[in-house]
């Protein structure tokens, strides 16, 4: 049994099979969740390419699998990242199932995760953008509301992802063989520019972010959150892989300066829109854009410490948006839609969902004592000492996020007014607690716990950079 077969091919196919099974939706979703959690656990426990044993049965998981003359390679150091990846996906699937906001496409979340692992494993890495595109195409049913309706959001999303493909593939083909030192800077300038534009499409960098507000308005919050977090994280990891692969890229100060510039651009524009946005779903989308910019700024600082910051931001982002999206999902289910009015009085009608929304949004804003703050603090101090303008941009974006957070808080405690609970578009009262509520509480507590004791996650974060050799 080879690792790529176990963590890429089989889960990708299984997710698709579970998705197309007709009839009742709970069991396929639960099966996908169980498989995803088992794969996360297996990646954590079993070494790759070395003899090991399960209870008394000895076995060895091979690292490589050949496919059509090329190969998928999962080195042992990659398994921590794979474990984190599947673990995060399992949490998102659990949240979608428990809060009832995942729709019938929960198994496809596992397929997307598997294909994204494939993007990091394919050799040569030239083909990785094809895997990202396949993952984006698998996201279309996830983003489509099961009740039908406008297809503009998913189509816009897939269009932007597809536009990135030719740029990155052509750049990859032109840069093949130039991993060490290129014959001259002019030989790599144009391909590197193409690569940069490709990543701009994938990471929804301004002005290529049009799909984010549309998707977060029209799709279910859990679906939109999953796609934004996982696809952009996959693209960011692919970007880090490029720095790992090309010596000249990580030795060129200009590359880091460009990253910082783009990071400032994304953070500033995202923060500006966030300050004026009222729709709760779109607020989450713009906030995710700001977080993407922070990741670029952290990477733009250079050095080993910056990589730890990147991992911290990525891990906390996955957790924070999960809690936020789960809270919004519950509100959407109870109100029938997610609009500005839908969150009115949610603090009384759905207090636990309101708690999750506040914790998730405030963590993304960087409020002290929440997980987001713990990961932003080293970034802010690093930027303030070396690049003051970038630090100011982050502060401004946090201000915009703060305005949005206060607006959400005000909405949550606004009375129903002349509308009654249970009216279309107004959140309904519930008499009984369920497992979804427990998920919301535990998620909020986890955000608080990581914020107060960030040292809990540091040993885990230190293992993730091992996936990249340099």
């Amino acid at each position, binding site marked *: 049994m080879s690792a790529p077969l176990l963590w890429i091919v089989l889960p990708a196919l299984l997710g698709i099979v579970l998705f197309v099974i007709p009839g009742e939706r709970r069991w396929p979703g639960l099966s996908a969740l169980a498989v995803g959690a088992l794969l996360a656990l297996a990646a954590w426990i079993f070494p790759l390419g070395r003899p090991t044993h399960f209870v008394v049965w000895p076995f060895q998981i091979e690292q490589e699998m050949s496919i059509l003359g090329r190969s998928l390679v999962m080195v042992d150091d990659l398994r921590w990242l794979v474990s984190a990846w599947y673990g995060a996906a399992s949490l998102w699937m659990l949240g979608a199932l428990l809060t009832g906001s995942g729709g019938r496409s929960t198994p496809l979340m596992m397929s997307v995760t598997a294909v994204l692992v494939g993007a990091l494993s394919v050799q040569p890495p030239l083909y990785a953008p094809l895997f990202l595109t396949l993952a984006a195409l698998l996201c*279309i049913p996830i983003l*489509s509301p099961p009740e*039908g*309706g406008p297809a503009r959001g998913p*189509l816009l999303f897939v269009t932007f992802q597809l536009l990135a493909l*030719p740029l990155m593939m052509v750049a990859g083909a*032109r840069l093949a063989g130039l991993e060490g030192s290129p014959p001259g800077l002019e030989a790599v300038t144009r391909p590197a520019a193409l690569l940069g534009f490709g990543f701009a499409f994938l990471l929804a960098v301004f002005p290529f972010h049009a799909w984010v507000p549309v998707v977060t308005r029209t799709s279910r919050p859990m679906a939109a959150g999953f796609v934004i977090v996982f696809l952009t994280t996959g693209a960011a990891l692919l970007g880090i892989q490029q720095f790992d692969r090309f010596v000249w890229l990580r030795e060129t100060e200009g590359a880091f300066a460009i990253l910082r510039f783009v990071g400032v651009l994304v953070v500033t524009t995202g923060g500006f829109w966030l300050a004026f946005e009222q729709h709760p779903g779109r607020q989450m989308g713009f906030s995710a854009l700001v977080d993407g910019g922070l990741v670029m700024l952290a990477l733009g600082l250079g050095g080993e410490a910056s990589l730890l910051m990147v991992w911290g931001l990525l891990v906390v982002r996955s957790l924070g948006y999960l809690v936020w999206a789960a809270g919004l999902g519950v509100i959407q289910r109870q109100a029938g839609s997610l609009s500005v009015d839908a969150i009115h009085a949610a603090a009384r009608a759905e207090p636990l969902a309101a708690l999750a929304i506040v914790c998730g949004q405030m963590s993304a804003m960087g409020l002290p004592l929440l997980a987001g703050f713990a990961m932003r603090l080293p970034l802010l101090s690093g930027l303030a000492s070396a690049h003051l303008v970038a630090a100011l941009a982050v502060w401004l974006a946090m201000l915009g996020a703060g305005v949005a957070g206060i607006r959400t808080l005000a909405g949550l405690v606004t009375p129903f007014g002349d509308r009654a609970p249970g009216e279309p578009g107004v959140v309904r009262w519930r008499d009984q607690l369920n497992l979804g509520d427990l998920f919301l509480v535990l998620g909020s507590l986890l955000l608080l716990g990581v914020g107060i004791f960030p040292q809990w996650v540091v040993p885990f974060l230190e293992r993730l950079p091992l996936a990249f050799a340099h």
Partner: protein
Amino acid sequence: MSLLETIAVVLIFLAGLAFLVIRDWRWSLAALAVQYLGVFILVIGWLGLELAAIKLIAGWMATAILGATRPGTIAGDDRQAGALFKVFVYLLICLSMWAAVGGMLDWFPELLPFQGMSALILIGTGLFGMGIEKSPVRMVSGLLFFMSGFELVYAALEPSALVAGLLAAVALALALAGAYLSTGELPKLEEEESL
């Protein structure tokens, strides 16, 4: 340029024009199928018959998937509004691509001028089609035109079986996505039609 290649270039030119101008879904999908035939002829030289056939078969399968959704049931597909404007824009696209092909050949010396021109026409047609269409099937058809143009260029750079297979998977997945979104939109559009 051989006779077969000349026919392929003409087919691609006419397919692009037909896709943009004719609103009937049958003709649009026929245009999509015809451009796959043109691309197949042009990439045989680099990929060989086997891999080129993968592109043709996957492309035709994608067309069939889109056709199976019977997008003709969507309101307004039979309108011919703006046909003259679209012909004009299409000719403008072809002219600008003609101007751009020289620069492209500097980047891709592997390509011959007619191959570069065909790829750029497909990319331009796809981008314009995506920009002006609202129906999922027509938007996805535009994306498939765009992808065909890219595949034509990329076949010269990397004649690999894995790439051919993955690009075929992308085309099929795209068509399935278009069909999925189209069936999701149908109730709403039929409702609008009845109003």
